[in-house]
Structures are given as structure tokens and as C-alpha cells.
């Protein structure tokens, strides 16, 4: 291909490196709070207690690692699928600076205890405004570039990118509507039951449009790119896309089963949650059948296994999640450690696995080189896989145990276990979870080393990609 333009590789690179940096911060804090669960002396008041660090952990990883990777990888994908550079390359650079400033301020404010107390919408209102500005900058560039594209047909990944940009904007603005008191404090505009309904409409769809649709955009782009095999069924991808983005928004209230929220909203959410299995598995099946054209890719192409294991965990996640929504299951496992086990299968197994593989694909391309070591990538793969499985499985076991102990009664009808007796039985599992986390972290260090060495031996200036 003759090139009369340059892709803006530096911004893509900047976002990827930034996201890895915030990922390290988030993961280290994750390890720290996992230790606090079984060793309360690791709480250092006031800035480093569990209650403050948990928000830094979730925000650092969802928005620092997650969104950072999404911004960078989306810019990369959009430029390739539109066959043109970004419409506003300078704006994208400011986007990168603003993003890092926002995440840094977010972390500081959360350490300082400024917390709206809405899960995954913790940041106080001035930072919310900053996030909205960031998102507008991003949306303008993405839409502008797509509108001025040189390739008429929009590929699947662009659908998911457009849906992400639209949905996150709606979700974030509505749930962060608040009554400011001071610069660092505000109250949710909504109250009580209504506040709960708005928050979990947001909370669940933040998972949908930060941890699902963007990662599917990566999956649909990089799986065919890595394997050289086109996506198995275009029609299946159309059905999956529309039914996924339609059904997701109905399901937030499955987080509120057995709460005072009106029953009909809970039930409707549970029904749509069950329905969501279909579009989720549409993508899973599409992924399997794509690689099914040549399963030897699992051996010969080191990235294929990342994508296939990633989509497998997505598939397991989207079976387990709807199951948890059922009242009979919810009454046992809700509020227990089962739930963090579920969340981390998604984030460590699906999101991180797929994003890391996408980064393995991108970095050598923009640095005009090969990956530094496929062997190290394979070691990375096995460490994060084993670490994540230890994490999730131990939490599922202890979650079921907790739920059962809370329900257990003596023959005379009194409760068989005090709360403290139930809590104490978690300790060995919480310790094992820390071990799983350490193994996962070691895997991520192999990944970072591999990326660092690849960047070091490559040369972006001569990039013609």
C-alpha cells in the first residue's frame, strides 16, 4: 500500500504505556487490599484504609488501565478500519494528557476520601465534569474520523466502538447528576430506592460498555488480524450486536434482588439478564468457529490462545452472571465473596487477557519490529491464567460457604453461626486469593517486561504501518 499519510502512532503508544502504568498502580493496591482482608494491621489510617483503597483499586483499573487501553486501542483500530489518520491528531494528544491528569487527580481525591459512594462512579463532581470533557474530545475524534473515512463499509469493531461512545456518555452523565455542597463534596440527585435503581442501571452498564463492548471491538478486530482467518459469521455478529446493546440496559436491577426495589423491576431485570446469554454466546460461538477453521493456530500463533481463553472466560462470565441473577441463587451468594470471584473472572480472565493480546499485536506493528519474546508471552499467559483461576475458584468456594453459614439454623430454629464465626472461616480462602493475585501480578510483570523490551528494540520514527 502506498502511504500518503502517517498514522498517529505516538498517541496510541502514549495511551497504551499510560494504561500499563495505571494498571501497575491498580494491581499493587489490589494486592494490598487483599492482604487487608486477612490482616487488618495493613490498614494505615487515614489514607490507606480498605474503604479508601478499594475505590482507588477499582477506579485505577477500570478507568486507568481499562479506559486508557480502550482509548489507545480504539484510536489504533479506527485509523485502520477507516484507512485514514485521526481527523484531529492534536486533539487526541491533548486527550492523552488530560486523561493522565484526570486519573492522577482521581487517585489523589479517592485517597483523600472524596467519594460519591456510588460504585464505579465514586469521583466527585469536578472530576465528573473533567471526564465528560474527556469523553466529548474522544467522541469528536472518533465520529469525525469515521465520518471522513476512506473505507465505505463499517466493520463490526466500529459498531461496538460507536455503541460504547454513545452509551457511556448517557450512563455517566445521568448517574453523576448531583447536588454540589463544596468543591470536593456532593450528594446524589436521586434518593433512596430511586437512587439505587439509577446507580445499578449505571453500574451494570458500566460493565457492559466498558468491560464488554470495547473488548468485543478488540476481539473482532485482532482475532482475524492475528490468525489471518476472517470472522466466521457476519450475520451472527449483526444479531449479537443489536440484541446485546438492546438487552443490556434492562438488567441493572439484578444487582438489587430482594432489596426494597419494586419487584417488577427486579423480575424484568432477571428476565432480560437470562436473555443476555444469547447475544453474549453469539460472540463466543463466532470466535470459536472462526478459529475452528484452523485450530492449529492455538499452537502456531501465540496470540490466538489469549483471544480464545479470553472469549471463553467471557462465555463463562455471561453464563455465571445471569445465573446469579436468579432469586434462588441470589439469596445464597449475594453479598458474599462469590461476587468478587465473578467480577475478577471477567476483569482478569476476559478483559485483561484480550487487551494484553491486542497490545502484543499493536506494539510490534507501530515499532516496526517483532515481539521481543514469544516465550515470555507464553509464560505471561500461564501465570495470569493460573492466578486468575486461583482467585476466582477460592472466592466461589468461600462465597458459597459464607452464604450457607449465614442461613444455617440449629434444630430449635436459632442461627447456627454468629456472623464472626462465618467471617473467620473465610481467612484461609482470603489468604489463597492473595496468592492467586501474586501469581497474576508476576504474569503481568512478564507482560510489561516483554512490551518494554519490544519498544526498546523497535523504532517508531520509521513506522509506515
Amino acid at each position: 500500500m502506498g502511504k500518503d499519510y502517517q498514522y498517529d502512532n505516538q498517541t496510541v503508544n502514549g495511551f497504551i504505556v499510560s494504561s500499563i502504568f495505571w494498571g501497575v498502580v491498580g494491581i499493587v493496591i489490589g494486592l494490598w487490599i487483599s492482604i487487608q482482608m486477612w490482616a487488618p494491621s495493613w490498614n494505615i489510617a487515614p489514607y490507606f484504609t480498605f474503604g479508601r483503597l478499594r475505590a482507588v483499586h477499582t477506579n485505577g483499573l477500570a478507568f486507568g488501565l481499562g479506559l486508557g487501553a480502550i482509548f489507545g486501542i480504539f484510536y489504533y483500530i479506527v485509523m485502520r478500519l477507516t484507512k485514514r489518520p485521526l481527523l484531529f491528531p492534536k486533539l487526541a494528544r491533548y486527550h492523552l494528557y488530560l486523561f493522565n491528569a484526570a486519573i492522577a487527580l482521581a487517585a489523589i481525591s479517592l485517597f483523600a476520601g472524596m467519594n460519591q459512594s456510588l460504585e464505579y462512579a465514586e469521583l466527585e463532581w469536578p472530576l465528573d465534569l473533567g471526564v465528560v470533557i474527556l469523553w466529548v474530545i474522544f467522541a469528536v475524534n472518533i465520529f469525525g474520523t469515521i465520518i471522513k473515512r476512506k473505507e465505505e463499509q463499517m466493520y463490526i469493531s466500529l459498531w461496538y466502538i460507536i455503541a460504547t461512545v454513545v452509551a457511556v456518555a448517557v450512563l455517566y452523565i445521568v448517574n453523576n447528576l448531583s447536588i454540589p455542597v463544596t468543591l470536593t463534596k456532593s450528594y446524589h440527585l436521586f434518593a433512596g430506592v430511586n437512587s439505587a435503581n439509577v446507580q445499578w442501571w449505571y453500574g451494570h452498564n458500566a460493565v457492559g460498555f466498558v468491560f464488554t463492548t470495547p473488548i468485543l471491538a478488540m476481539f473482532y478486530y485482532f482475532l482475524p488480524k492475528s490468525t489471518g482467518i476472517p470472522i466466521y459469521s457476519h450475520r451472527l455478529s449483526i444479531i449479537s450486536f443489536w440484541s446485546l446493546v438492546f438487552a443490556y440496559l434492562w438488567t441493572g436491577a439484578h444487582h438489587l434482588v430482594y432489596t426494597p426495589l419494586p419487584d417488577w423491576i427486579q423480575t424484568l431485570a432477571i428476565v432480560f439478564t437470562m436473555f443476555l446469554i444469547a447475544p453474549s454466546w453469539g460472540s463466543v460461538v463466532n470466535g470459536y468457529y472462526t478459529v475452528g477453521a484452523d485450530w492449529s493456530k492455538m499452537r502456531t500463533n501465540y496470540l490466538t490462545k489469549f483471544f480464545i481463553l479470553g472469549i471463553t472466560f467471557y462465555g463463562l462470565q455471561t453464563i455465571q452472571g445471569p445465573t446469579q441473577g436468579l432469586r434462588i441463587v441470589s439469596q445464597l451468594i449475594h453479598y458474599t465473596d462469590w461476587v468478587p470471584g465473578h467480577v475478577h473472572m471477567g476483569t482478569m480472565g476476559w478483559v485483561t487477557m484480550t487487551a494484553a493480546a491486542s497490545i502484543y499485536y499493536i506494539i510490534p506493528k507501530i515499532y516496526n519490529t517483532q515481539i521481543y519474546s514469544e516465550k515470555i508471552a507464553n509464560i505471561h499467559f500461564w501465570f495470569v491464567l493460573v492466578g486468575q483461576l486461583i482467585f476466582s475458584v477460592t472466592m466461589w468456594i468461600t462465597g458459597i460457604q459464607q452464604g450457607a453459614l449465614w442461613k444455617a439454623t440449629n434444630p430449635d430454629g436459632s442461627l447456627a453461626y454468629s456472623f464472626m464465626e462465618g467471617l473467620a472461616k473465610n481467612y484461609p480462602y482470603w489468604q489463597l486469593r492473595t496468592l492467586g493475585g501474586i501469581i497474576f501480578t508476576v504474569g503481568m510483570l512478564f507482560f510489561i517486561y516483554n512490551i518494554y523490551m519490544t519498544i526498546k528494540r523497535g523504532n517508531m520514527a520509521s513506522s509506515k504501518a
Partner: protein
Amino acid sequence: MSGDIYKKPILFAVVSAVVILIGTIATMFIPMLTPQMHPKLENLKPYTPLQLVGRDVYMSEGCHYCHTQTVRPLKTEVMRYGEYSKAGEFAYDHPFLWGSKRTGPDLARIGGKYPDAWHYGHFEDPQRFFAESNMPKYGWLKGYPVDPVEAEASVKALGLPYTKADIDALKGKNKLDAIVAYMQVLGIAVAKKPAASSAQIMGDKKNPLSGNASAIAAGKKLYDANCAACHGAEGKGGIGPSLVDNVWLYKEGDVSDGFIYTVIAEGTTAGKEIEGRTAKGGMPPYSSMFDQDKIWSMTAYIRSLQNK
């Protein structure tokens, strides 16, 4: 269907937005416009400035990451925590703080369960009350005074009623005072159900395990884990009264084993009459936590403390 939409990004974005908004409108926006999402119990009182500051501390310290504030309508849950949560209890909650995880117990009905002194002691050193607890210590909150100016701005922002006296009363208060005040107001808009009467169980008010050495040993274990933090390791009192001075509910003189059983099982709700003595509150009921044998064992152990 024509494939045109996949060539028209603006149309695609508009259609996506509409598809996304259908579920949003049906399950979030429309309910918001109906009264079922804005219920308020008649005897629900707005937060006082001090309670609201306490709630701010609760939010700021991320207490909601480990404690829920909603009791589900499930049998054992109601036994453990009290009456299940009602929609009308949360009208002043901006935002709701139901939480999503119970690393620690639910707090929806913590108000009035323990005396203030219990909360101060427990915030300062949770492990003194529950040796295996993983809760961080929060005594350091004492070092942070309540800011009356910000507190007034907060109640104003939420449109809650307050008087100048309420704001003046904040002077000299610290954040630990505030969060204790908040704890004591949680869930009190719903009347506590009295614990099941123990009259049937007590029989002739004599402890069937009286003097039984293994029961006393079992009772000691239960006492150390559940009672010692308030009544002292040797029963000499602390947050709760002494159990060895032969003063029972503020009156000196012997009581039956059944009296001790009833206090453990049913608690000391203010106004409750037990064997001619009147309770003034302070101790929660334990009948849903311990079966008869356990309560009789503790009774036997408490008797053994007296005889020391």
C-alpha cells in the same frame, strides 16, 4: 434489511442510541416518575446535622464497601438482623447506601442495638470486641473536628430542616461522635419486633445445666467471645454492668436463673419488666443467635463468676 446502516455512521449512532434508551426509559426513567420510587414511612425523621455529618464520614471512609444496609426478606436474615428493609425507610438517603458486599454484618438495624459506649469502643478497637474481626480501627476519627459551616451547607443542600441550635451543638464534636450518631439512627423508623418470649423455655426458672462443669466451660467460651467486651473478662463490668455484684437491672438482690436466661435471650429493651425489675435499654437480644443449651451454659458460667 439493507446493509445501508453499516455505511452510515450518523444513522448508526442514532439507531444505537434509541436501542440503548428503550431499556433505560422502561426500567429507570418511567419508574422515576411514579410514586412507587419515592415512598416515605410516616415516622421516618430527616437526618439531624450531626447524623448527616456522620453519614458523610461513612461515605468518605467507604464503609459501604464492607457493610450492607438492607435486610432481605429471608427468614434467617430477619432473625440475624431484624425486620426486613422497607422502601420507605430511605427517603432522605442521597445516595442509598445498601452496599453490595457483607465483609462485615448488615447495618440496616444497628440503630439502638448497642449503647453509644459500645460503638465508641468498637470503632477504636474492633478486635477487642471480636478477636477475629478484620475491621480497621477508626479511633483516629476523634482527631477530626466537625466543621459546622460545611455541615450547615450540607443540610441546606439536601433541604433538611435544622435549627441554629443544631449547628451550634456541632462545636466541639468530632467525626467519631458524628458517625456514632449516624449508627444510632439507622433503621429506627421501623419498630423493633420484641424477641420471642422465653417464658416457655424457662420452665421452673432453674438452670438444667446448673453446676455442670462441661456446660460452664462451654459457657465461658461463649462468654469470652460475645459478652466479655462489654461486661469484662471476669464479669466486673465495663460498657455493660457488673455481673458479680448481685445488682440486677439497677436493684440489689438475688434473681433466678430464668432472669439471667431472659436477659440474654430477650435483651434489655427500655421499659421491659423482668421479675419486678425494669430495663432501661443497652443490651441486644441473643435468642436468634444462641440455642437454649448455649444460653443455659452462659447462665451457668455467669453464676460461677458470682461464686468466685
